[in-house]
């Protein structure tokens, strides 16, 4: 069991995780607070000033329709973060629940659910996402649903593993003999133990969710124009990459940095969980 104070101390001393948190904080502040101060519209067209290079009027230049690249970066960032968190929250909620049920129930139900999870894992996740987005129409919501579905099996597996390993632990039996109801014990111990690995899984899933939704956006299956979304913005401006490369590279770099931040935090959390590694890394 680790305490919150221990976590904070760890974040301060561990450079890796600390850097990740700092980067994420920077991104969060930029996209959440930035548009409040930088009031340029991300969807207003300035056709005559299209593909303008960075300058005093447009700090990061304009895109192919004359829209401000910085504004689209900030607003697109909001979309990306909201999307990432919602997708993971959804996948987490359903995946963990199903995984727990599977782990506790055992028997045929467990077997069937695990084969279902195997089946879902054997789809290339992009295919499932493309097919779902194609089936229900191209929109950001549908893309999010598709990505959430493809991320569920992993949460289910981790949760199931935790459920199984805890349910056979001796202290559970001990608590039962003391008269405590079995269900409550299981849940309490499982959650206590599972929180760690699930948190790690969740931060890494955030990175994956953002990458996949960006890929769907890149393929035209995510947010529809004129909404600012990082993946879509890369693909819209790909034709102009030779004369105005920054227009496509800026949103792409946004995706890169955000996913890096989440991965750093995930790494840090993983190190924090595992006492054996701590003395070696720092």
């Amino acid at each position, binding site marked *: 069991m680790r305490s919150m104070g221990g976590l904070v101390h760890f974040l301060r001393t561990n450079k890796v995780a600390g850097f990740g948190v700092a980067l994420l904080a920077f991104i969060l502040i930029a996209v959440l607070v930035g548009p409040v101060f930088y009031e340029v519209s991300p969807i207003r067209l300035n056709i005559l000033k299209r593909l303008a290079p960075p300058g005093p009027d447009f700090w990061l230049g304009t895109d192919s329709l004359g829209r401000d690249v910085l504004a689209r970066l900030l607003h697109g960032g909001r979309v990306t973060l909201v999307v990432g968190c919602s997708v993971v929250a959804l996948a987490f909620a359903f995946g963990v629940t199903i995984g727990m049920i599977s782990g506790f129930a055992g028997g045929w139900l467990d077997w069937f659910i695990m084969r279902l999870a195997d*089946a879902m894992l054997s789809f290339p996740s992009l295919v499932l996402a493309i097919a779902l987005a194609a089936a229900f129409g191209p929109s950001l919501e549908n893309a999010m649903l598709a990505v959430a579905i493809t991320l569920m099996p992993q949460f289910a597996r981790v949760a199931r593993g935790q459920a199984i390993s805890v349910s056979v632990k001796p202290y559970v039996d001990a608590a039962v003999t003391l008269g405590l109801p079995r269900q409550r014990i299981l849940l309490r111990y499982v959650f206590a133990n599972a929180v760690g690995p699930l948190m790690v899984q969740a931060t890494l899933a955030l990175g994956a969710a953002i990458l996949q939704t960006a890929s769907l956006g890149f393929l035209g299956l995510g947010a529809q124009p004129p909404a600012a979304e990082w993946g879509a913005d*890369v693909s819209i401006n790909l034709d102009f*990459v030779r004369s105005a490369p920054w227009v496509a*590279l800026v949103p792409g770099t946004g995706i890169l940095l955000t996913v890096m931040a989440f991965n750093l935090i995930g790494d840090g959390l993983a190190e924090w969980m595992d006492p054996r590694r701590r003395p070696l890394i720092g």
Partner: protein
Amino acid sequence: MVFVAGRIVAAIPVLALVLIIVFLLVRAIPGDPAVVLLGPGATREQVAALRDQLRLDLPAPQQFLEYVAALARGDFGLSLKTGEPVLTEILLRLPATIELTLMAMLVAVVVGVPLGVICATRVNGPLDHLLRLVSLVGVSIPAFLLALLLQLVFASYLGWLPVSGRSSALVTEAPITGFAVLDAILRLDSAGLQSALAHLVLPCAVLAAFLAATLGRYVRNSMLETLGEDFVRTARAKGMTRPRIIYVHALRNALLPAVTILGLKSAEMLGGAILTETIFAWPGIGRYMFEAIRNRDFPVIQGTTLVFALIYVMASLAVDLIHGALDPRVRRRML
């Protein structure tokens, strides 16, 4: 043997589930394939007639059963777009994807494992930090951004490598095995071999990046774990020199997670292949599937998804078997 049989048996329901899911999914996609086939000038009657002919209006369970029966005969149906047998079309394009994926896996292992080892042996040094940063970028970068950057730098500005495609225009001999590299070697064609390899470099790099970086990270962590373990300290105390410890003991233990990751990520890599093939105009089944989804070519979508699932299941199976071979504890646990 029981172990092997057990794993194979477990794979069958997975495939069945995949089939059902794909079937339902494909039926849910709006857009009438009869309209696509007949074109813009088609009247309502013509569309209805074609739907009837293609048996598109039968109840779904019946369509499904017919489809499964046909599959058992080896008949994957006809492409709605070209009218050619789906299986033939898939087999034509499969070598391209396999070549790309295998090469990418090879590159990932050849680059990722040593990367992890170097990091572990120079832990906390400047090289470790640099390579860890590179790995971090590798797992975080969207594939389309990496492709874009590589194309800009190596193909556009430097002109060292071709931009896209699998071979240059003037190589038009009929394929022997379907693997461009092998064919060139078999034909003793050095220029063709150059061309095939040059065209492989960029798509391979993009596809391998994520896996190489992931492998690097896992190998590093796993080796550091092992290096901290008691038996290593004991071996050191007994006087075994440093390199032997690392390469013989730590690496072998680090290989286990590496193999697991390879297997698990092979499905993801196939998904990544779709994007990579589309960006680099690589004529494989990833791109074929993507086009089929856009064209509402149901039989092709079903066929290619099934093939993907098959490959994943086989790869998982292979991974499990290797796991079992490498680690006897696993064999007992996995049953």
